[in-house]
């Protein structure tokens, strides 16, 4: 197992003399909490003194902390400043939080994804807080003419005990801001036991603004003279623009212009996040959102089939490659047939331990099961949109993006402007789930603004958003287990693939716990675009693996938790192979914790119970789901989750995110599905695309964290993958039927008399 240890970069400690771009989006930490009275908190100071990129201190002791990472609901805007505040040693109620704009010279890794914000920022932010604290100490030492080593800090105060000298941070901030930053490597960080803010729940710093409807999102942004834009994209994957008649819309009320937008230049080497489904779209520009959306319906446009095509991709490490996009109009029914065909063919062997073929020949019995799941749309509540103001050789973009650094190359290439002339300001996002790592919408808005030489806000309709691709792929996984006459597990074989990628993680559990093991992958190319979706690949393979282990445990006559613990014991004491990427003890730890918290063996009357566990993003999660049957329908009663993600920075907010991931998993397991007919997505709005709703959420969710002194690991994603099997396994207990294909609901509707 490797923890990502980002080397501290000096650029984090550059002095800055001005505010980092954008508007003053200050969020006072106490506003959301409503706890302290007005007298107890500090007001805005007259002057701010910049200590480093992340920290400003006012003359009255108020502190501004910059959240470097894009906020999409994972609450980094609160948790990352908490890390800074703890090492800086200040009172949280005197902290303002400001969203940093994209500024790679000042901030590291301004990216939201891979459950990585807290784990990557943990050391850099602690160091930024601690070095700032040292600068304040050095300022006091210089002012008081005493050794720095004798000065202590205590929640915003500096003190030299033997001389009796004392001062607030605010009094020394002006001098501290002029001092040389100490060598980050030489600054001592707090011991875990000394944390005062980390580990103590703090409310969302934007809470008060959210509940009063203040403008926080890119879609809320408006400037004088701003125009509105809508887009029209091809109706199907495999189609492209042939021609359109601009005059069909330009005479409509409020419409200024309609034109083609080519998102990427032909020779532009795309990077990993430069996915876009439709590289050529039509923009309609006008005076209001409603008018441009109405005009979309009136536009005369002709589409044509797109031939096979290729585009250049700038590979990692500098090598360029050509990515092929097959032509053709694809169908979900044909996808299913093709996937079933691949199960019977040999795949690419990704790991082999022992002699799996021999073991299967010797087996007394073989259990073989195939699991499938469909494409999924992200469906962020805030549709793709962006504000852009491109005039002459300067561009300002304000948009919902998880990955500003990744889209900067495309912006620069498509606009024909140097990167230093492009400012990306980071908006709070109305959800992301991976979708907004692919930020073509920022390029589209920027090109529209450049064309009309005026500020513009471009917004997708829900239909544009849901039918524009970048989906979670469709997957299939076949698991085979070889058992001897005494029900001993001899071998395990996994063959997993998808359109257009395989979900296989060949070195994850149960690899390492089984002597004879074979893992193969396969993939089928497609013109349907895919992208990261909350716990990519894990969000499917966990459900397949943990459903299979449940059925296997039953075949072997074992308790499902006990069976997993036996496998983990084997992986711990006598591991097979050397590339196992999990820690069996921590894995077993969450299973033991969920067994205890759910009171596993004491199943309440009328309840059916299933378990599942998974490791991803360096975190371990086990979940138990309880269902009952009411009116011939399953009802999710309780969910118990046990999580080992190291130190938890903001426990209540962490629990909130865990609860959300569980609800998200239940929703997608029951209902989530995107299908295609002749390349056309069959669902384009929430009337057809079933999302989980209030009454379908569990009645109770408990999220328990393992107490830990380990550095934080991922949290936004790891609670999501185990849900699918915990739910499937409990539904099996409730209905007597194993569910192998997602979504579950259509199959449940076919069952006539559910048990209980």
């Amino acid at each position: 197992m490797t923890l990502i240890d980002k080397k501290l970069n000096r650029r984090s400690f550059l002095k800055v003399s001005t505010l980092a771009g954008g508007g003053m989006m200050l969020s006072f930490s106490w506003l959301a909490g409503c706890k302290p009275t007005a007298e107890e908190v500090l007001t805005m100071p007259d002057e701010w003194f910049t200590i480093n990129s992340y920290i400003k201190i006012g003359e009255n002791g108020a502190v501004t902390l910059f959240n470097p990472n894009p906020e999409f609901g994972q609450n980094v805007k609160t948790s990352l400043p908490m890390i800074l505040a703890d090492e800086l040693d200040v009172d949280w109620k005197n902290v303002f939080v400001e969203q940093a704009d994209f500024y790679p010279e000042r901030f590291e890794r301004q990216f939201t994804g891979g459950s990585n914000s807290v784990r990557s920022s943990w050391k850099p932010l602690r160091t930024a807080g601690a070095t700032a604290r040292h600068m304040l100490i050095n300022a006091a030492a210089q002012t008081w003419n005493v050794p720095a080593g004798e000065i202590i800090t205590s929640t915003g105060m500096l003190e030299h005990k033997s001389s009796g000298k004392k001062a607030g941070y605010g009094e020394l901030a002006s001098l501290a801001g002029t001092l040389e930053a100490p060598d980050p490597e030489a600054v001592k960080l707090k011991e875990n036991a000394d944390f005062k803010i980390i580990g103590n729940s703090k409310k969302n710093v934007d809470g008060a603004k959210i509940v009063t409807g203040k403008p926080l999102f890119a879609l809320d942004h408006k400037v004088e003279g701003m125009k509105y834009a809508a887009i029209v994209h091809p109706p199907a994957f495999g189609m492209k623009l042939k021609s359109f008649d601009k005059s069909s819309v330009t005479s409509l009320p409020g419409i200024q212009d309609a034109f083609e937008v080519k998102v990427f230049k032909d020779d532009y080497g795309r990077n990993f996040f430069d996915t876009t489904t439709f590289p050529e779209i039509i923009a309609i520009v006008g005076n209001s959102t409603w008018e441009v959306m109405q005009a979309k319906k009136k536009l005369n446009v002709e589409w044509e089939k797109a031939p096979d095509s290729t585009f250049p991709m700038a590979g990692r490490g500098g090598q360029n490659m050509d990515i092929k996009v097959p032509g053709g109009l694809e169908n979900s029914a044909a996808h299913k047939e093709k996937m079933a065909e691949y199960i019977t063919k040999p795949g690419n062997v990704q790991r082999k331990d022992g002699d799996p073929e021999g073991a299967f020949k010797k087996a007394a019995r073989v259990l073989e099961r195939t699991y499938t799941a469909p494409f999924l749309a992200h469906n962020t509540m805030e549709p793709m949109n962006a504000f852009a103001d491109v005039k002459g050789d300067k561009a300002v973009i304000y948009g919902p993006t998880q990955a500003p650094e990744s889209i900067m190359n495309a912006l620069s290439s498509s606009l024909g402007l140097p990167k230093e002339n492009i400012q990306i300001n980071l908006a709070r996002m109305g959800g992301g789930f991976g979708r907004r790592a692919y930020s073509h919408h920022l390029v589209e808005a920027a090109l529209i603004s450049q064309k009309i030489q005026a500020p513009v806000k471009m917004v997708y309709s829900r239909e544009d958003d849901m039918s524009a691709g970048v989906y979670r792929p469709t997957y299939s996984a076949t698991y085979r287990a070889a058992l001897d006459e005494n029900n001993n597990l001899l071998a395990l074989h996994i063959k997993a693939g998808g359109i257009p990628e395989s979900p296989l993680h060949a070195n994850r559990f149960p690899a390492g716990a089984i002597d004879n093991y074979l893992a193969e992958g396969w993939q089928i190319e497609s013109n349907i675009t895919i992208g990261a979706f909350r716990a990519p690949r894990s969000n499917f393979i966990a459900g397949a693996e943990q459903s299979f282990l449940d059925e296997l445990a039953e075949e072997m006559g074992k308790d499902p938790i006990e069976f997993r613990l036996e496998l983990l014991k084997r992986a711990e004491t006598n591991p097979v192979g050397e590339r196992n990427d999990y820690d069996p003890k921590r894995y077993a730890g969450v299973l033991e914790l969920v067994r205890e918290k759910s009171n596993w063996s004491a199943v309440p009357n009328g309840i059916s119970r299933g378990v599942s566990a998974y490791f991803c993003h360096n975190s371990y999660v086990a979940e138990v789901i309880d269902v009952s049957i009411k009116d011939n329908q399953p009802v999710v009663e309780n969910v118990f989750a046990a999580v080992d993600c190291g130190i938890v920075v903001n426990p209540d907010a962490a629990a909130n995110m865990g609860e959300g991931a569980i609800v998200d998993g239940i929703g997608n397991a029951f209902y989530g599905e995107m299908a295609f007919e002749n390349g056309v997505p069959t669902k384009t709005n929430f009337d057809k695309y079933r999302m989980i709703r209030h009454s379908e959420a569990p009645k109770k969710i408990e999220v328990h964290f393992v107490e830990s002194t380990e550095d934080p690991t991922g949290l936004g994603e790891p609670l999501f993958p185990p849900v699918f099997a915990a739910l499937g396994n409990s539904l099996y207990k409730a209905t007597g039927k194993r569910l192998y294909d997602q979504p579950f609901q259509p199959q449940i509707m076919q069952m006539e008399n559910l048990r209980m």
Partner: protein
Amino acid sequence: MAQYNLSINGKSMNVDVDPNTPLLWVLRDHLDLVGTKFGCGIAQCGACTVHIDGEAVRSCSYPVSVIEDKKVVTIEGLSEKGDHPVQKAWLEHDVPQCGYCQSGQIMTAASLLAENPNPTDEEISYAMNGNICRCGTYTRIKAAVKTASKSL
């Protein structure tokens, strides 16, 4: 285009728009009241919920021409200081994740409690079912509605 005089959050406001323009876009584009959100445009997600004469309605599907002299309240006008019992309960339970759907959730909850100050769990679920939260904060929403109910 036509002139409309609307009563919004207790104030009289004039707009000159196409009669078919949904209230949502009048609020957002013409009156700069952007707390009411666009989610689906077909009254399926609840992000655009406002009160019209006290009743929770989906403003994305409510043409401006039929409002006449009805009283419109948006999230910005739910309380003067952001201290409506539902808003306070939302903060106490730290409900929001991304926050985008929450003004719609709050408007639906406030309307429910105005009609039925002590709803059962089932009544809460029924009333809140038209509001999608993609982040999945439903269990906290339910807890916050109950807390607000107690403080009414």
